[in-house]
């Protein structure tokens, strides 16, 4: 258990540095963390399975919000349609 703590701190520092660098570069890739909705939905499924309905719904809502953010991030090009 004790071995995990320094590793977690190290990981946290690495993420902090990444966040600062990305902020400095004006690079907002981290905000478009594609795996985030999947993580939230996995948590919602686990909570539902454990019969924690309210937690499951809250995680589902958070996942949905993250999904909408991803959709906005990825849908930038206009459709090539002409009628």
């Amino acid at each position, binding site marked *: 258990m004790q071995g995990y703590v320094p590793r977690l701190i190290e990981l946290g520092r690495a993420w902090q540095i*990444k966040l600062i660098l990305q902020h400095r570069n004006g690079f907002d*890739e*981290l905000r*478009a*963390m*594609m*795996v985030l*909705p*999947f*993580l939230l*939905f*996995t948590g*919602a*499924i*686990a909570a*539902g*399975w454990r*019969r924690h*309905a309210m937690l*499951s*719904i809250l995680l*589902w809502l958070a*996942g*949905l919000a993250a*999904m*909408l953010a*991803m*959709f906005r*991030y*990825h*849908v930038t090009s206009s*459709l*090539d*349609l002409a009628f």
Partner: protein
Amino acid sequence: MSGRVLIYLNSLGLLGLSGALGFALADQLINHDLPCPLCLLQRMAMFGVGIGLVLNIAVSHHPRHYGMMIVSAVLGMFIAMRQILLHIVPGTGAYGDPFLGLHFYTWAFILFVGVIAGASLMLLFVPRWSNERHASIPALGALAIGVFFLLAVANVVGTTLECGAGACPDDPTSYEFLDRLLGLNNRN
């Protein structure tokens, strides 16, 4: 319609949804058909739909859970429609190989329409709703939830290997994060 029948119907629905997600995952692993960001968003919407089913199976029957399914399916339908429209003009290509004559995003659109219709029919025809929690989860329900959960974990792993902790490329050709990791390992 008794509570038991509703649980079995929801379990079968969840197994069907898991079948579609499993098929997409198998295609990704076997045919190396990497999912694009819009494809991943459609998978997410399917998981959103499934969470409503999980709650119906594990907790209680509640109109709210069907509402969750409909909201997720509407969002998924819009995402699938967006991808269909991207490739609707002849000569603009398509993403991935077709299955039974239709591309996966067209199948996803059909699936989401089916979910909306199914959930709406359940809301119409279930005579009364009870707030009572189910006494237990039947074996079929537990199996369906277990399979669905494993698929969610597989998608977390797959998306992390493909995109890392950031945005996915629009037209992915390899597991970029995995390549980066292997590249680092080679350097060391």
